[in-house]
């Protein structure tokens, strides 16, 4: 059983163990992917909201 808490420790470089998760690069890459995903989601929801409002106004 791991006994882990979320108190901070010193900042370390983002590096996975050798040969493990070789496809994932850096924190900046992950942040960029997140921003793109969130941006896309919000644009989609905003557009959907507007289209629903238009449909609801139709008699």
């Amino acid at each position, binding site marked *: 059983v791991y006994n882990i*808490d979320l108190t901070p420790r010193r*900042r370390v470089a983002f*590096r996975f163990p050798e040969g493990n998760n070789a496809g994932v690069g850096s924190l900046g890459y992950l942040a960029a992917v997140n921003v793109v995903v969130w941006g896309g989601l*919000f644009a989609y929801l905003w557009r*959907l909201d507007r289209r629903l409002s238009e449909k609801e106004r139709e008699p």
Partner: protein
Amino acid sequence: VRVLKGLLGVYMAAFTGAAFLWPEPAQGFVGESSRIVFFHVPCAWTASLAFLVAAAYSLAYLIRRNPRHDDVAAAAVKLGLLFAVIALVTGSLFARIMWGSYWNWDPRESSFLLLIFLYGAYLFLRNAVDDPDRRATVAAAYALFAAVLMPFLVFVAPRVTQSLHPQTVINPQGKILMDTPTRVVFFAGLVGFSALFLWMLSLESRAARLRRRQSV
């Protein structure tokens, strides 16, 4: 309301930036992997919230027989499943980093997978019944049955068994073991994801109402 939705976008952008840049990595985690907690836990929380909303609206439907309540309940289950799958996927990524395998048959992984099957069956059940009134009644009864099992799968089963899963916020010590930046970002995530869920729930319910209006 439009302003609030716009503010939610700004809030979530700020939250995402803060999640990557503000708190220090946590003890006992490989590299920066602890940051996944800012997305993984709010998704699991939002899934639970969605299933509770589904139960409340299902009960309301059984009492008042208002089809709008059924629309909201079905929308809540769909969104709950979406957030539950994201929680499971982010949890699997974390498991790969920390424990070397995407899937470890850990009690929390297994109980969450069961939860997804439980609510996945709700959607199959809805699709299996053609008559709208009967479908809504059967689905509402099933959602209430699932809601009885849900707290056991999410909150009880993983706590009464040995688990690889890191300590939860509601832990045996009764203390939130986070420093201030981690705590602020973590709870901001819970609020943001809940607000996002409410917006998506409103959209899906409105879409369902329109579909029903067009089919009449």
